[in-house]
């Protein structure tokens, strides 16, 4: 029997009262790809940070290639042959690829010999693993897919035999993700051991040999990928059966609600983010906008929500709305029947230090129901209203007096969704409704969005999760570089075609 490349025994770690990892045991065989799947906050990243020396475990042992190893800091992890590709890349933006690779792994105090050596090594690695990167390119000028390759090269340059990737496909187009998987396959052939952390079931099924499931800090199961299925894994993750598909009846589009003509947005840095976009949404339908993050979707949402300026024409129920910001803001947008679930709930959707009931009142302070008289607000009625909404949206714990930051991501999102949907808007803008939200809450939020559509409301859904776009939308538009590359019907397209559009390759429907 071969010794495992990595073996963790009884790893526990607590942050204050929160037990992030509870008695974790795991064995990963050399030359395999092992997946770790779990919801946000299940403790996957904490576990890997312990392995990379970022945190010290409260108890437990780490064995690398059968040898007990202490990893008090990253340097020891690197020495033990562990390389890590973080979800948020750890690259120096204005350095070249070469400088980033060399940083921390220099030979001697002088820079030039180190750079020369790294240059020839990079060339070798590029040939060996098809990891082609121009060593003199500056990081901020290359795409995220290439940046990720630099991170992998960094690990390989440090002679890592064990590579940990944390949510590596979050920022990639489907084509880039495929390429990454090819590279990982190649690394596996060369005998490297790979740990892939993800919350995407599809990736686990596609590439891993074995998979461990984490839930609430515990390792609930380790199975061979070939012997499992996505619904089974989802059940292990959540602890109950979940519906992966959204149940919905065909849309019955009605009156035109939103008409957008030639909308452009230029940001404060003078960069044009949205370039002459036109589309419309009817009552009772969901328009999904797909695209890799940073292609103008955020700005589009911000203009429609009333806190970014634009040019062009936007009509709601046939009336033009002001885009210059002179006569409009988030408040006037709400008066026009636009509700908005912003992309970043912690920055735009909630004030984290405020209590749930205070957050529920935001944007709707003028509601007559919330006023005691002309001067004072009626806090008692706001709290009652909040308790009522929390009940119906299954926010846990249903306590209006808790600060927003003490809820989990999914429950925070439910608070925002409850606030906006309950106002019965004509148009609902939703950005990344399920980012960082657990599967159970995703199911709930999706149902709410579909229910609102069935009441005859128009919905603009922006998401980087292609699965979400595919399952919720009645029509799909794809944004790339500030432009809409095309519109498709969900049952007449596929991930591959959408992926090409997301990468800026315009094509006719196949």
């Amino acid at each position: 029997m071969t010794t495992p490349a990595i073996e963790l025994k009884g790893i526990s770690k607590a942050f204050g009262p929160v037990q992030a990892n509870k008695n974790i045991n795991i064995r990963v065989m050399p030359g395999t790809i092992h997946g770790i799947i779990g919801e946000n906050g299940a403790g996957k990243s904490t576990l890997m940070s312990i392995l990379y020396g970022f945190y010290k475990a409260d108890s437990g042992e780490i064995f690398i290639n059968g040898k007990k190893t202490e990893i008090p800091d990253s340097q020891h992890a690197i020495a033990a042959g562990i390389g890590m590709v973080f979800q948020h890349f750890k690259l120096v933006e204005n350095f070249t690829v070469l400088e980033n690779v060399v940083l921390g792994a220099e030979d001697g105090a002088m820079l030039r010999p180190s750079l020369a050596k790294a240059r020839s090594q990079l060339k070798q690695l590029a040939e060996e693993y098809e990891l082609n990167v121009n060593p003199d390119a500056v990081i901020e000028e290359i795409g995220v897919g290439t940046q990720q390759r630099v991170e992998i090269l960094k690990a390989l340059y440090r002679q890592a035999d064990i590579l940990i990737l944390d949510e590596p496909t979050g920022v990639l187009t489907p084509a880039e993700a495929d390429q990454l998987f090819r590279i990982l396959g190649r690394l596996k052939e060369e005998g490297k051991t790979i740990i892939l952390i993800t919350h995407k079931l599809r990736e686990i099924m596609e590439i891993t040999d074995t998979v461990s499931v984490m839930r609430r800090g515990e390792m609930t199961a380790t199975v061979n990928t070939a012997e499992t299925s996505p619904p089974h894994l989802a059940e292990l993750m959540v602890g109950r059966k979940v519906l992966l598909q959204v149940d919905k009846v065909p849309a019955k589009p009605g009156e035109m609600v939103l008409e957008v003509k030639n909308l452009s947005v230029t940001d404060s840095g003078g960069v044009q983010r949205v370039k002459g976009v036109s589309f419309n949404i009817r009552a009772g339908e969901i328009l999904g906008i797909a695209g890799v993050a940073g292609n103008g979707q955020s700005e589009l949402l911000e203009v429609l929500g009333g806190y970014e300026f634009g040019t062009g024409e936007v009509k709601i129920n046939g009336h033009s709305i002001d885009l210059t910001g002179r006569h409009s803001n988030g408040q006037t947008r709400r008066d026009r029947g636009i509700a908005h679930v912003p992309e970043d709930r912690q920055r735009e959707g909630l004030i984290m230090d405020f209590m749930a009931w205070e957050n529920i009142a935001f944007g709707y302070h003028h509601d007559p129901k919330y006023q005691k008289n002309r001067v004072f607000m009626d806090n008692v009625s706001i709290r009652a209203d909040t308790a009522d909404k929390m009940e119906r949206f299954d926010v846990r714990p249903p306590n209006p007096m808790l600060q927003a930051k003490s809820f989990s991501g999914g429950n925070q999102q439910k608070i925002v969704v409850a606030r906006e949907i309950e106002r019965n808007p004509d148009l609902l803008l939703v950005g990344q409704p399920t980012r960082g939200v657990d599967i159970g809450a995703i199911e709930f939020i999706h149902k709410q969005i579909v229910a609102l559509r069935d009441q005859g409301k128009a919905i603009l859904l922006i998401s980087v999760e292609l699965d979400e776009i595919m399952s919720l939308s009645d029509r799909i538009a794809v944004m790339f570089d500030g432009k809409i590359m095309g519109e498709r019907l969900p049952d007449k397209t596929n991930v591959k075609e959408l992926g090409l559009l997301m990468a800026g390759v315009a094509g006719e429907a196949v």
Partner: protein
Amino acid sequence: MDLLTLLQVLDSSVRMATPLLLACLAGLFSERAGIFDIGLEGKMLVAAFLAAAMASVTGSAWIGLLAGIGASLTLAIVHGLASITFRGNQLISGVAINFFAAGITVVIAQSWFGQGGRTPQLGDGARFQSITLPFAESLSVVPLLGPIYKELISGHSILVYIAMLIVPLTWWGLYRTRFGLRLRAVGENPAAVDTAGISVVRLRYSAVLICGVLCGIAGAQLATAEPAAGFIKDMTAGRGYIALAALIFAKWRPWYALMACLLFGFLQALELRPDLITNVIGIKVQGQLLSALPYIMTVVILAGFVGKAIPPRAGGEPYVKER
């Protein structure tokens, strides 16, 4: 205006620029590592005081210099503790250091020497004297180059030459050594440095300490190098802030820092020769306006009129490991 007068003005520009340059390079090390330092002023001030005081007591300029560096280093360590170890606000720590320095120097000077917050006049041995470079006299007959050598290049204190040498040294250290690569990286993205297995804390402390040493030399130059002869109250007169403006003007690059500081030095030198201005432009300019010139220039630079300067990206933020 003849060549000789021009050379004299440039000569005093170089002298005036020296403390600015040292402080500017001090700030460069600190800020490149991601630690903003408004406390350059305060560090220079304590260094100037202690250098003058010790030089006056011991009669040795060199002992004065070491004492000045020591004083500046002490405050640098305080700034390091506040902003690296305890992750405090770097601006507030810097401001506190400046206030502390402005007060403590005068109080100690008064109780020590009883001369109204100044140190006694330094005798010749107790201050850095001008050095006449070899052949300055004999070469002075060579047209143009001779006078430039004699008037402009020769005849400064040793500290001026040291400061000029530190410019290429800084450049070399920053761009040609492992330390420089790591230093630049830690000011841009400390997380990258940390995950590469390098200690962010140690790197930042070394930058802050280098900053302390350079500010110490700057202060000693102000108080103990010819023609200065002792410490007087508030003698840095905002040079720490001007150095910061020069640093922004130079976009955190050493050679540009030299140019920026020479420009500021020139403006300060003009103040010493109001007669020249009158001769050249034909109008009598108020002395106060001339004195204000470097500060006006500072405001203009800080207001961003000289193009966009992008500071090191992680500047001003304490590093906390994230999950």
